Each structure stands twice: as C-alpha cells, then as structure tokens.
C-alpha cells in the first residue's frame, strides 16, 4: 500500500472520482462545479472525466439544488451537492433538515436518501459576517443527519468514502484554509468508520477535543505546553454526528481535564455538546471545569478585528493552563 502527499482538496477530489468511477449513478450538483471545478477548485478534472450530465453545473438556487439532490437520491442516484459557503446552508436547510434528514423515517424506511452536501467553512479570510460562519452545530441538532468535519486529507478521503457508501443524508464540512494543506493519503480504498475520533496526539494531563480548523492550532498549543511539562491529548473528533462519546469520555477519564476548541461561535456551538458528553460520561474523573475555546459571540467582522474574534493557538494554551491550575 503506497501513500502520497495530497492536499485535502485533492483527497476529496480523489474520493469522489473513485466513487464516481465505481458507481455510474453518482451525480454532482451545484454552482460553478463544471469546467470551473467548484468555487474552491475541489472538483478539478471531474467535469472533463464525467461530463455535464453527471457534473451538473447550474443556476444559483440553493434550495432547489438541494431539493433536486433529495429527488435524485431517493431515485437511486446518490447525489453530492456543493453549497459554496457554509453560511448559505440557511437556504438549503429546509431540503436538508426537513426533507432529507426525515424522509426515510416518516416513510417508514421505504426510501433511502444517499445525499451529501459538501460545504466549506470559509473563515478568517476577511469576507465578512455573511461568509465566515461555522454552522455545524445546526446540523448536529437534526436527527437523521451525519455531520463529518475532517481536518486533514487522509481523514477527508476515508470519511467521504464511507459517507458515500453508507448512503445517508450527510453534511460534509470542509475548511477553506485546510484545502491546500498536504498530508499522506493511502492509495488504497480505505473507508474510515463514522463516529470514531482520531487521537492526533497522546497525552496524560489534559484532553483537547477539537476538529476541523482548530486541530492544527491545538497541536501547536500542545507542543508549547509540552515544553512546560504539560502533556495534552489532542482528539480530532472528525465526525460530530455520530459523535464518539465513548472516545471522548475514555480520554477524559485518563486525563481528568478537558478543553474543547472550535472556530464556531461559542454559545450553543458543538463545544457545549462535547463538553456535556464528558460531564455525563466522566464526571467523577473531572479535576477541573471543562473550558471552551471558540469564536466570540459576534457577527464576524472583516479586517483586523477578526483576530480578536477567532480563537487561536494561544487561546487554547491559555485554556489548558487554566484547567491545569
């Protein structure tokens, strides 16, 4: 089995290409996904290989695009819809949350909804309040959805393979800053099970549970802290639904301390659920309050003010030092 260095964008591309070759029914829907290759170029080459019938570029109408996706999916054509920025999930939310997520249930199991929405978090780029949100907590709150949110190329590929093959309604949350970052990816076709976190770094003193854009800053913080003798265990949760509650609790039971880090705004973010998971499953082991590192509860500004709003590695470090007190 050989591995290559792939960017996260390339790994996602590879997973989709692989699956589209395997299953001629798979369709891609979205805007700018044709020759243009997707807003952030993730689909490079797919239009050339699979043509306009399967890589269906189209009009700017997120609601109907997602709705068409549901219709294709229930008709046995697994569909991947690209929503250009996660902020615009608002427009696809009825199709995804009231339809895709619930349809199999309210029709008593008669339909299968193999529909994936791929959407990127596009933050810290200075695009302002309507182009900077991390809304994964919304999706996590809807029973019937899978929420996958990888931090690196290998996970992105393996989890996307699983999502496509499993065939359930899935929100696959990408991250624009992670698209170019390279890491080793298997040549082989190795799906990664959903609901299993990845221990990104082992440690005994404190657990940092994180995902997506905060994995790297958390690892950076862990390196710094190790210099001071604080050994952090960094958990990359990878999927939020299902959430690896056991894995989180197992680590917290070992370390006795938990810091949760994400880029979404703090209040009612995924971090609250993750923290409460440890509360419910590892309370007796907790030696300090669980702290959260997250964006400030503000609409996201442009310019320099952003630095104040988004969390960074130093914030993780501070939180860890606090729980170690």
């Amino acid at each position: 089995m050989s591995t290559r260095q792939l960017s996260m964008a390339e790994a996602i591309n590879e997973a989709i290409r692989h699956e589209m070759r395997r299953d001629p029914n798979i369709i891609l829907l979205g805007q700018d996904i044709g020759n243009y290759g997707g807003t952030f170029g993730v689909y490079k080459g797919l239009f050339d290989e699979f043509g306009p019938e399967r890589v269906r570029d189209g009009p700017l109408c997120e609601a109907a695009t997602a709705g068409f996706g549901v219709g294709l999916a229930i008709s046995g054509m697994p569909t991947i819809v690209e929503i250009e920025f996660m902020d615009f999930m608002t427009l696809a939310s009825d199709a995804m949350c009231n339809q895709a997520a619930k349809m199999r249930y309210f029709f008593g199991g008669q339909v299968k909804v193999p529909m994936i929405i791929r959407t990127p978090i596009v933050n810290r780029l200075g695009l302002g309040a309507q182009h900077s949100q991390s809304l994964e907590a919304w999706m996590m709150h809807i029973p019937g959805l899978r929420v996958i949110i990888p931090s690196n190329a290998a996970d992105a590929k393996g989890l996307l393979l699983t999502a496509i093959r499993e065939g359930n309604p899935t929100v696959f949350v990408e991250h624009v800053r992670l698209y170019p970052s390279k890491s080793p990816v298997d040549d082989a076709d190795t799906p990664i099970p959903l609901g299993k976190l990845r221990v990104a770094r082992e440690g005994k003193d404190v657990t940092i549970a994180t995902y997506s854009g905060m994995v790297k800053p958390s690892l950076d913080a862990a390196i710094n802290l190790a210099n001071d003798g604080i050994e952090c265990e960094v958990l990359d949760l990878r999927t939020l639904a299902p959430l690896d509650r056991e894995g989180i609790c197992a680590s917290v039971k070992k370390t006795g301390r938990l810091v949760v880090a994400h880029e979404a705004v703090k209040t009612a973010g995924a971090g609250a659920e993750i923290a409460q998971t440890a509360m419910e499953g590892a309370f007796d082991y907790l030696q300090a309050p669980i702290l959260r590192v997250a964006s400030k509860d503000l609409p996201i500004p442009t310019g320099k003010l952003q630095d104040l709003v988004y969390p960074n590695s130093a914030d993780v470090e501070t939180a860890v030092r606090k729980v170690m007190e």
Partner: protein
Amino acid sequence: MKHQPDMKTLLHWHEQMWTIRYFEDNAISSFRKGHFTGSTHPCIGQEAIAVGAGAALKPTDQVLATYRGHGHALARGLDPKRLMAELLCKETGCSGGRGGSMHLCDVSKDFWGTNAVVAAHIPIAGGVALSNKLKKNGRVTAVFFGDGATCEGAFFETLNMATLWKVPLVFVCENNGFAISVPTHMAIPIENIAQRAQGFGLPGVTVDGNDPRHVHEAVSAAAEHARRGGGPTLVECKTTRWERHSAISAGKYENEDEAMKWKKVDPIPRFEKFLKDHGVKAAKLDEQRERAKKLNDEALEFAMKSDHPKTETAGDFVFA
C-alpha cells in the same frame, strides 16, 4: 379532446372518485372521534384532479403530492386499508405508522409520498424527474401542489431548473382558491396561475379541475410532451376547496354559503350527470358508489383493528 377515454374507463373514474370521497369522509369522522390526533386535510371536492391526472400517468411514472394528497394516493392504486391505517398511525400503515395523514408513501406503486412543508416536495419531484432523464427510462414525474405553494421560492426555482434541464415533469397546481384562509387574489397578482409559466419559458395551461376529463386531457398532453423530451408543463386545475382547510381548522369563510360553495360545483354529481347523459343507468352508479363505500368501511375496520407500532421500534428507519 385528443384523449378520449372509453366508457369502461370513465366508469372506473366514477368509482375512484367515490372511493376518495368515502375515504375522506371516514378520515374526518375518525379524526373527530379521536381515533387519531394531528390533523387531516381532505381533498373533498377535488377528486376529479386526482382521478383525471392519475389516469394520465403510467404505472411506472412517479407521483409526489402534498398533505392534501390522499386522493392522489388512492388514484395511484394504494391500498385504502394501509392508507387509513397510516392515518391512524398503525403499524400496518403504508408508512409503518410513523408518518400519519401527511406522510403517505408507497414506493412499490411509485407513489413517492406526500409532504407537509408547502412546496418543498416540488424540487424533490424535479430531482426524481431528472433521474428519469438521466436513466433514459421514459418515465414521467407528476407533482401536485396547491395555489398557495405557487408563491414559494422552491416552486419558482424548480420551474426554472426543470425547464432549463428539460426534465420530464408535470407540475399540477390544484387551485382551490385558498391557502388556509388566504384567498388567491390576496396572494397572487395574476389571473391564472398557469401564467407563471411565461416567466420561465414552459407551457402553461388552465383547465376546469372539477371535470376529470379536462384534467386528464391536459395532464396526458403534458406527460406526452415530457416523455418526448419536451420538458415540463404547468397545468393549473381550477377547483373549489372543501369547507375548511383541515379537519381542525375552520376555513373562517364569511358565511355558510361560502363554506358550502364546493357543493355547488361538486365534481361527482356533475360527472354522474355526464355519465347518465351518455346512457349509464343510475343503478350502475349506485352499485359503484356502494362498492366504494364498502371498500372504505373495510379499510377503516382494518385500520381500527391494527396495532400501534411497538414502542421499541421508535428508533427504526433513521439511517440506512
């Protein structure tokens, strides 16, 4: 008319209309007796659309409808027993008792379900139709919705996308004059909903929705057009709503007269008159009506006797 059904077919429609009418009568009385909670949205007075349009489709075509879609399910050949059992949220219901009155489905009959979010099923139907096109299977999808739905973004976006991609879809609007309490003139600034089509470049036609022959004619033409690769058509069927929106909500009409308006244009006596004018004996019609009633009474009995889903199955069917 181009599509002239023979007398046998017309008689079958007559029986179907009665089947729907009795089904809805039973639905209302069951609801009133507390046999199920929630609500139910009868299509009384609109049976001619379900029957006429249903007859224009092939068994391999697909149908999607709204909460006011019991008639479409019956016209599609779904078993009244399993439909009534679903209204009563029983295990034997067509959706396993999870969906209730607003979520009827039978994939084996290519009835891809009724939906409770107004207009949300329209793009889904677009996707189903697109799958036909991609599979080149010659099938057509029909989607039913009300006048109210034709103000929702999802409807317009689908008109645009379906026309652009020429998907084999027939949009059937049942214009019954009201969205709950809002009359069409307070929601729609044009005379005929079919005119919506002009902004999107697809054909639009308006027909008398209380005559199954006219509905049949228009939907047949639209389905053929779609099957030939011509893309979608918007068919507006003008009709009149039953006295109220649902079994709970009163329509709050200005007066009793308004509420009972549907009776004056009831498609069933009108169709019976047509049949009699064409030589059908009253006894024949009575016999059909009786059969429809019996079928529904048996359906209700079946539903009443069926069990509720077992509580331990509440978590079934979330994921595949």
